[in-house]
């Protein structure tokens, strides 16, 4: 749940990129760091091992001020995808306000995707998140690779699921912003309900998204 600090007028929103190992979670964050231009953008902190695998997590801090003066601060994390780091995944997922599940589109990765998604649901339950209420976006990444599932196949498989499914190529940046925007829309709804962003802070959904993405970008891609 987002952390609201009244004394320093700050709302901290936690977003988590979850998914199987090597599906492109860190690359998603790197592209966000490259593309987004909010008023406040921290440096991307990447904690990786020698072979470029995420060890603990990556962290991208973003922020802007609402008309009321409230600082909206995002902490965007990735989890380590490797199976052995489950305790870390659980710790990072704890108190998340929104999740992007980054799946690998390659045909050979379907089982890994499924196991990781089950792991997400299980860990959400363990850390006390209501998985049915949690803002969640499913992103099928690596659309630039050969031997991938077709969009139709993927949409058919996820037809009965309640979550939006998007397609991306994190390496080229395609679909990265769309995924992030879709998640922000869902997150805004829950935050507005809890912290009255619209009525108390003069922040509607469109400007919430526009300010998070950064001025030039939101008009260009909006």
């Amino acid at each position: 749940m987002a952390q609201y600090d009244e004394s320093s007028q700050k709302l901290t929103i936690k977003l988590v990129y979850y998914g199987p190992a090597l599906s492109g979670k860190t690359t998603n964050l790197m592209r966000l760091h490259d593309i987004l231009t909010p008023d406040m953008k921290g440096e991307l902190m990447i904690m990786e091992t020698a072979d470029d695998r995420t060890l603990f997590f990556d962290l991208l801090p973003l922020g802007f001020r609402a008309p009321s003066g409230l600082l909206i601060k995002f902490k965007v994390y990735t989890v380590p995808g490797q199976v052995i780091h489950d305790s870390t995944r659980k710790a990072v997922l704890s108190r998340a306000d929104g999740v992007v599940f980054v799946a690998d589109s390659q045909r050979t990765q379907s089982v890994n995707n499924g196991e990781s998604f089950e792991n997400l649901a299980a860990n959400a339950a363990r850390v006390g998140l209501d998985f049915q209420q949690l803002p969640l976006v499913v992103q099928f990444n690596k659309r630039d690779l050969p031997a991938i599932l077709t969009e139709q196949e993927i949409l058919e498989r996820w037809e009965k699921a309640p979550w939006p499914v998007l397609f991306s190529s994190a390496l080229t940046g395609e679909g990265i912003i769309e995924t992030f925007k879709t998640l922000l829309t869902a997150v805004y709804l829950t935050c507005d309900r809890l912290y009255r962003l619209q009525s108390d802070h003069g922040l509607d959904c469109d400007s919430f998204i526009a300010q998070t993405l950064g001025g030039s970008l939101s008009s260009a891609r909006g």
Partner: protein
Amino acid sequence: MSDFQSEADFERDLNLDELLKGIDKSRLVSALNVLLDTMVDIMDDTGASLIGDNDSKTVDKVPLHGELEPVGFLQTRTAVPPERLRAAADMMQLILRCNARYLLSSDIHLQTQRDDFEELQRRNVALQASEARYKNLSESLEIRVKEQVKTIEKAHLKLYRNEKQASVGRLAAGVAHEVNNPLGFIRSNVATAVSYLESFYEFNTLIDNGASSEELRKVWEGRELPLLLDDFKDLMNESLEGLDRIAKIVIALKGFSRIDQTETERADIDTIVRQICQVAESQWQQKAKLVLDLSSETPIQCQSAQLGQVVYGLLGNAVDAIEKTGIIRIRTSVRNGVVVLEVQDNGRGISETVLPHVFEPFFTTKEVGQGTGLGLTVCHDIVKEHGGTIDIVSQIGKGTRVTVNLPVQNAIQHSKES
């Protein structure tokens, strides 16, 4: 505990003091002093001095950022070219970032270690509890199994005894039929005889009244009193025969109802067979022709009531095996000091798959409620008690022959349940 938790929460915002943890501040400030060629101070975002002097005069000031917001300021006491000041702040931020990476890593490491440890402890407690449960269970299991076995054995024994009693009951039902038959004609005979007496009483009244012999003779012949007298005699003789038959049945029944008998007596199997056939006649007479070929004539030391039960049981099975009509042969003989009893029918026979099981307790091919599955078990046990053997040969559609071998010289065991 809560302090420890907040300490290890990797998500908390680190303040400047924390970000400078582990860094040699005097070396840092002297390096900055030399690089900027002035005295520097470092304040946090609340205005508290972390390095240098809070009260000294500040000329230039540049913010130091944490993740996103300023966490403090780098201040100089004399003027410094802005690009040099920014470069110094940038370098400091690089140092702070490196430290932040370390702090975040150690915090999440601590947090996951603690969570894992707590999880392991929880599992350990759960495992110990379940181990204790299983230990308890395994201890009580043996006792409970023994109790169950005892209960089942008791139930079996009860059923087994019930089967013996039930066969006596069936015998009694048959006997009632056998007794009713002669009883019926004896009653009818006696009633007729009583009605004859009326005529003789009338004749007697004539005598008392002093009738002449002429008159008496007239009445004697006119009423056909001589014929009545002859018939009276016949009726009585017939009734006596019926009574003898009843007496025989009662004697036989008395023999076979003593199933609890433990003492042995000398009895020959031929007599037992004859008595059983007599009292059980109603059971077979509708369906089967019974052919007796009895030539053992050798008394053996036995419990005759028990052997009667064997004959009765085998005869009953033979009758049941016959679907419409058939022949049942009972043969006895003596061969090499062994009394042999054979009961043979030409009924439906027993299949090969069923045959090996027929002596097993509670095995039955009859409809539920029709047989207990104990009949042959009881026969087998009785024969065994008498030191004998029992064998069955059968062919589907041809019939079945049961052979019982009883040694003549046999000290019967007295051990069986009583």
